[in-house]
């Protein structure tokens, strides 16, 4: 009685829980398959045609055993031979139809996968092109590359091959058992006796393979790390003559990997054959029980339920069921891989740039209007690099007038680079304010702002394209292309790199990054200055870019910059006194705050000031260099 009451109580609760579980599971499915569904819908016409072709193939798949049955019945039961040629012809027709179908599904279904892969790659890359420095500081390019290639590929495989395998299995299940049932319900039941074990096998196998292959991946990663270390640290190893110890460790780790791989192989290799075996049990049952049925049948039973033809047709059907059974597992693993890749891709796709146009952004300039005067004001500016608690800038306030030349000097880590990188909004300004010509940088359209600010970074990056293309990178799209050559050469002359370029194998058409083309650090720096000059910025920002050039070249570049037509505001960060001494104003930064400012002469006047100390040290250093040069001349 009491149990009955309990049943009554628990039943609705259970069904409620089940409903909830199913709903959650369904929601999870919708969430994890969103990419897959998106692209399937986008290419629905192609998917539809592909599935139609697949249906054709799978329907045709049912016919041959029937033809076999008919022909055997002719052979044994003595039906008229005249039908035989027809049967052979029909068989040929079936093969042709299947050929057409197979061509169709490959072209349409696999094509859908490839197109989806292309789209996903493009979408992911478009997103990457929109993310700023704070994102790239946190993510390694290698990882992003593997997302853009391997992970988009996993989704592509699911949409192409994965869908195909799944649909194929479903169609098989929908057709072959029906044909079997029509031939003989009894034999069908017999053949399917071993069937229920299969889903269990598939699920168990999936789990084991997943666990074990994770271990293999881990060991492989450790082995790679070990090899990486041993190669990078080869001098240490050789210096200590410990090659043997390294080899021993490597060997042991390799053994571990081999062992784990074998453990994985043990489950992987037994899965297919086990499935096969399960289905083959059906064949044995067919032979044994079905054969007995044939034997027991009266000899002259007209229209016997089971003929030898039926029997043989069944053999073929059972063999055909092996593939769809295995296909479930294959489809499952395609799907799981696609889901975990989607998850990784989404993590990046959900990132947004911290530097983007706000809705209340004002369009500062009419299109085509050219320059802003170039006044800058830092107001109580503070800064920390994203995800880092160290204060790089503290309460920096400074006004720079349009056309003024301001130089920042200070030790490494004083905050020069951070301060300068805020001007083109490489990082977002969130603590304090930064104004360009009286307008908050956050209210400038990013594109417009970056057109106005010519920023040359201390870590030079040139593309593996021609010299000319690299310098012309700074050209705005609306600038006249025909004068490109003249503009590029003008810029390289100003940056004192023209002569170097002319000296290269193919002059301006020399491709960078190819074997044998090695520009010096100084040449690269000057090219990157030229690239920024091409843009004709209102505010030119040079972040410690003259460190790799000698003093004479530096002088030439500085002169070039001073003499350039339409010169505007110039902001420079430097190590060397020689770079900054002629600036209108020199600002000494220390630990993220402004310590001193003034002209060279004014700052030198303070005998105990930081600038004076820099100055004296550099004098001594120059003295030393001159002495060394003099000695060299003597020898």
């Amino acid at each position: 009685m009491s149990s009955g009451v309990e049943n009554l109580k628990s039943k609705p609760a259970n069904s409620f829980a089940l409903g909830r579980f199913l709903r959650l599971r369904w929601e999870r499915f919708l969430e994890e398959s969103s990419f897959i569904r998106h692209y399937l819908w986008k290419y629905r016409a192609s998917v539809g045609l592909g599935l139609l072709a697949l249906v054709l193939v799978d329907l045709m798949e049912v016919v041959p055993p029937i033809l076999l049955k008919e022909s055997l019945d002719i052979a044994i039961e003595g039906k008229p031979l005249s039908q035989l040629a027809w049967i052979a012809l029909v068989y040929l027709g079936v093969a042709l139809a299947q050929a057409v179908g197979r061509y169709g599904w490959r072209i349409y279904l696999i094509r859908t996968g490839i197109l989806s892969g292309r789209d996903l790659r493009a979408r992911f890359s478009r997103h990457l092109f929109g993310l700023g420095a704070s994102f790239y500081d946190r993510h390694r390019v290698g990882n992003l590359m593997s997302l853009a290639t391997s992970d988009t590929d996993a989704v592509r495989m699911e949409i192409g091959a994965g869908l195909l395998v799944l649909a194929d299995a479903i169609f098989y299940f929908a057709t072959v058992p029906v044909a079997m049932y029509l031939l003989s319900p009894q034999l069908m039941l017999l053949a399917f006796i071993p069937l229920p074990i299969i889903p269990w096998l598939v699920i168990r196998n999936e789990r084991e393979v997943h666990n074990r292959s994770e271990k293999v991946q881990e060991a492989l990663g450790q082995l790679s790390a070990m090899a990486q270390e041993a190669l990078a640290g080869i001098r240490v190893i050789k210096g200590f003559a410990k090659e043997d110890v390294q080899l021993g460790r490597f060997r042991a780790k390799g053994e571990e990997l081999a062992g784990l791989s074998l453990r994985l192989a043990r489950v992987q290799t037994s899965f297919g054959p086990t499935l096969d075996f399960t289905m083959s049990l059906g064949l044995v049952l067919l032979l044994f029980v079905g054969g007995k049925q044939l034997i027991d049948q009266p000899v002259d039973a007209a229209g016997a339920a089971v003929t030898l033809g039926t029997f043989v047709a069944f053999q073929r059907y059972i063999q055909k069921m092996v593939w769809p059974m295995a296909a479930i597992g294959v489809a499952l693993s395609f799907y799981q891989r696609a889901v975990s890749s989607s998850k990784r891709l989404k993590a990046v796709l959900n990132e947004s740039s911290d530097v983007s146009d706000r809705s209340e952004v004002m369009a500062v300039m009419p299109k085509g209007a050219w320059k802003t005067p170039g006044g800058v004001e830092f107001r109580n500016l503070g800064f920390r690099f994203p995800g880092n608690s160290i204060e790089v800038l503290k309460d920096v306030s400074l006004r720079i007038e349009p056309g003024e030349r301001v130089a920042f000097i200070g030790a490494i880590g004083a905050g020069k680079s951070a301060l300068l990188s805020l001007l083109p909004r490489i990082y977002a300004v969130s603590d304090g304010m930064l104004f360009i010509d009286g307008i908050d940088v956050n209210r400038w359209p990013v594109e417009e702002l970056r057109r106005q600010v010519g920023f040359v970074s201390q870590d030079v990056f040139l593309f593996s394209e021609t010299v000319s293309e690299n310098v012309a990178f700074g050209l705005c799209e609306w600038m006249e292309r025909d004068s490109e050559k003249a503009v590029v050469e003008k810029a390289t002359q100003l940056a004192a790199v023209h002569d170097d370029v002319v000296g290269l194998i193919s002059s301006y058409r020399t491709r960078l990054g190819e074997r044998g083309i090695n520009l010096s650090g100084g040449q690269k720096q000057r090219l990157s200055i030229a690239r920024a000059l091409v843009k004709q910025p209102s505010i030119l920002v040079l972040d410690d870019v003259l460190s790799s050039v000698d003093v004479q070249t530096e002088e030439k570049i500085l002169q070039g910059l001073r003499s350039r037509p339409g010169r505007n505001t110039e902001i420079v960060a430097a190590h060397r006194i020689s770079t900054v001494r002629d600036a209108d104003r020199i600002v000494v930064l220390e630990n993220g705050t402004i310590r001193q400012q003034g002209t060279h002469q004014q700052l030198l006047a303070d005998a105990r000031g930081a600038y004076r100390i820099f100055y004296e040290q550099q004098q001594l250093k120059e003295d030393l260099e001159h002495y060394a040069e003099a000695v060299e001349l003597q020898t």
Partner: protein
Amino acid sequence: MTAENIMEQEEGEIGAIRSNHLRKLIGCMLCHPAPLAIGLVLMVATTAAALLEPRLFGFAIDEAIVPRDWSKLRSLSAIYFGVILIRVVSVIGQTYYFEKLGQRVAQDLRCRLFSHLQRLPVSAFDRNPAGRLMTRVTNDISSLSEMFSAGFVALAGNALLLVGILVWLLVLDLRLGLIAGTVFPVMAILTVYFSARLKVAYREARTRLSALNAFLAENLLGMKIIHLFNRQSAQLGRFNEVNERFTDSQFATVRIFALFHPVITICSGIAVSLVIWYGVGSVHDASLAPGVLVAFLAYVLALFQPLREMADKWNIFLSGMASAERVFSILEWPVELPAGEGGELAPAVPIASLRGHIIFENVWFAYEGDHWILKDFSLEISPGSQVGVVGHTGAGKTTLISLLMRFYEPQRGRILLDGKDLRDYDKRALRASIGIVQQDVFLFSGSRADNVDFWAGTGKSGAELGERGGSLSAGERQVLAFERARAANPSIWILDEATANVDSGTEARLQQELESSSQGRTAVLIAHRLATVRNASNIIVLHKGQILEQGSHGQLIDLDGLYARLYRYQRARELHGNQNV
């Protein structure tokens, strides 16, 4: 990972088959006779069972069902079950043992390659970036392993099955066999033709994929520049072009497959139709047993499976061969250290009772061409003395050490140790006798104890250091490197800018420890900071590969040359604190 690295991984995966590489690979397999033999036996068993199965079913029809012999059916069913069991078990065993073979061979090659890399001269690492060599140890070895475990089995197993079926068809019934067989040559030719086209298409797709990867990697690395110049949409447009080109090449491979498979279907259809047409007639005439026909049809349908699989696995095989080529070419690079079979190395034994008398005799050295780093360099370091070496970056200080360690050999002149030419010593024994601490401390992942004991063999436990000692401060790393060197109890000490990154307190401590450890042993101290070498009995000032000044600290100050100026400069800097401008 850099753009170069990424491109490196994508480099042409499809190679040619070279008979000498094939011979070497077979040699690798023969080193593991047990899994090879078991695998081969099981492969034969699998093939035999697979061949027997359809025939047995047909036989049961002819011998038991048609004559209505119940007891025979019973026993034949049992045998049929047995054959299936044998096939399944031997398939599992075969795959397992070949996987084992693949893993064994991979491990052998991996260790041989690693050992070879460890024994290459340092100059080989100047020319070849570590990333590229890494790819050899990891990617190429896994593709080789796959070739052994999947490629070889599939090719050999399927070839065996193919031949077995063809022979069996002819044996069962010669006429019917010949009729069904007419399609086979056409099939084989088509397979070869499509495989060749596929190979070309795959290679094109690979090339375009690496172009895509290289483009994307470069743009990701230069994203800041792209943003600063507002070139996002222009670059993205170019990416889409590259992406489109790659997509087209993928279509090209699909189109080939799309034609290949239907063609096979049609061929197979023709063969089966012929067999039905002719075979059923024969059964009707009673010149052929129905069971034989049933078996025959099963064989004809099975004929194309191995052919298809061989075509599929051909790529694994080819990419394995390409990897083999790269791996074997590294194994041919000349090494500086000999090794035993399989790359085995014995532990190095330091040279006994070394006094540490070092003489550089008119040594000339250049890394490349005639850019002489050391020019006619001569120096004598008496046993047990401390020598300080100072000079600008590029003066040749570190080169001096590299020559002493025999990382490189001088082009002219010679170096003597205890009166014997350095070249007459065993390299590893020599290196094991020298304790070196460098500025750029390279620590290995693992614990503190791993980094010290692993080099010495004493037992101490410690905390994990993280990747290359990332969790330690510069000073701690330096101390650890010093302990690591001391653990080996060297006869000669070299400190190459060893105290450049540590605070003065730690420096003093290291200095003291060094003095106690190097009591009566030769020590070479290289330093930027003159305070470090101040106490050395002899200080040499190196400039552009030549000795400019030489003497004790006092003598050099009196000389008022480069050393004296350097000394004043550094004093001035230290007085003003750590203003590193």
